[in-house]
């Protein structure tokens, strides 16, 4: 797959919505360790909301589909993650406003837009154990991949690899935001639950654009 049409975006979101709830228990556990244990439930409910909202988005352009799906997630599963994730999707969607297809060249800007939206919404800066810590490295990787002329599947897989490495680094970070922030140094050692969810999504995206489940 070299470009994502509106119906590709819908197909991807459907795949994502089917897959993510299977990680509910893992996300619950991570969030229970340094938060309140609701992230698994949030993902399960929010992804169902995205799925339920897709039929109504049939006919919209890719950016709108992403933005609306983010709002759908947070409407049913509002939460810190919900607000952050909705903001990310809305910012990414805005970045491709008016376009009928998403191309590999759009990806770096979309992720950068998501990152700055998230930062504006929640006030987080890099190194504070939030999803920013996977978004920003991915944006860099994607920029390099595009500069090197990589295909969409190649770029997506590279982004996923970066995401995993970045996720690993969140373990050593001390949380400053949300519930983890009350833990201070005790939050060190556990990988960031929200970033874990993002990595699982990027993995799903990489497999989607590679045209099959090759995980």
């Amino acid at each position, binding site marked *: 797959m070299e470009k994502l049409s509106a119906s590709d975006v819908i197909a991807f979101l459907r795949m994502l919505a089917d897959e993510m709830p299977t990680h509910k228990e893992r996300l619950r556990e991570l969030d229970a360790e340094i938060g309140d244990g609701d992230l698994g439930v949030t993902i399960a409910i929010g992804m169902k909301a995205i799925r339920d909202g897709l039929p109504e988005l049939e006919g919209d352009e890719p950016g709108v589909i992403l933005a609306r799906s983010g709002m759908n997630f947070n409407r049913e599963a509002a939460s*810190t993650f919900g607000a952050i994730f909705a903001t990310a999707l809305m910012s990414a969607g805005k970045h491709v406003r008016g376009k009928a297809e998403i191309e590999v060249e759009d990806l770096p800007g979309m992720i950068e837009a998501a990152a700055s939206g998230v930062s504006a919404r929640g006030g987080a800066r890099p190194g504070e154990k939030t999803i920013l810590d996977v978004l920003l490295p991915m944006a860099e990787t994607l920029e390099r991949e595009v500069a090197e002329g990589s295909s969409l599947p190649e770029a997506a897989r590279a982004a996923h690899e970066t995401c995993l490495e970045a996720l690993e680094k969140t373990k050593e970070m001390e949380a400053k935001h949300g519930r983890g922030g009350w833990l201070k140094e005790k939050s060190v050692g556990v990988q960031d639950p929200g970033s874990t969810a993002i990595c699982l999504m990027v993995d799903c995206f990489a497999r989607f654009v590679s045209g099959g489940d090759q995980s």
Partner: protein
Amino acid sequence: MKKLINDPFEFVDETIEGLLLAYPNHFERCEGSDRALKRADGPVEGKVGIVTGGGSGHIPVFLGYVGPGLLDAVSIGNVFSSPSPDDMLAATKAADSGAGVLHLYGNYSGDKMNFGMAAEMAEMEGIEVQTSLVADDVVSAPVAERDSRRAVAGLMFAYKVAGARADEGASLAEVKEAADLAIFNTRSMGVALSSCTIPAAGEPTFEIADDEMELGMGIHGEPGLRRTKIMSADEVVDEIIANILPDLPFEEGDEVAVLVNGLGATPPEELFIMYRRVVHRLDEAGITIRQRYIGEYATSMEMAGASVSLMKLEGDLPRLLDAPAYSPLLPQWPK
């Protein structure tokens, strides 16, 4: 999971259904939302509206504080998760009679972000919104970082005070001022003896051995000060008081209101045993208890544990605490 529930994903909606069936003269749904409730007799003409909201699983927090002399509307999230901006907006509109609305809720990032979006939308629709955040848990951050502390049972004092002030016909700025004074003067700390279970998660949020407790745990099971062997009620109270008093500080000659709050599974008998010790300690410190509240004012599902909150009484606070207020979900106000 030791729960009397049906589909765990219907937990919140079935709770609301039961509540509306029980008290149709007290609660009504807000227009356009399944997850926002208002006083059936609201908005009250000319009165500042007060809106709260937050995750489910803490009754009487949050919806149990809607009523005359208290709050006007509430938005209701999933268990331990923020309500959505749409529900908050619906509650804000339902609470507004033109005098503006105070958003009064606990200092949690999810609620803050979502209420923030709702406030923006409300302002675009011409409703004046102010915000006060409750942040009473002394162990969640040092006093220098008070702004990042989380809310626990001290919410009750802020609700009671703000509700009474609004009832008196005060302006939005005045209601916010009263709420902020209550918030500033309130300090809390709790202890958890067992976990709660989010119904849809199906597993207890944390593990804790049969002979352990966690001092300073938050009302969602957020890790606290330290894990220890179970201490006696007196030892627990002593440690809580030792953490709370210097924080404001509460000093000799001060008058306070005391809240000994049960988190869920801890029986009232134990709250009275704790209150006894609070009295002994405050007597020694030369602090006078003017009003006391003992019971379940903010719970964490079936968590065993309790918290102690003190509010230093200054200015209007004694009058506002004693003002009439009613909600069928609260204990009777002590006379």
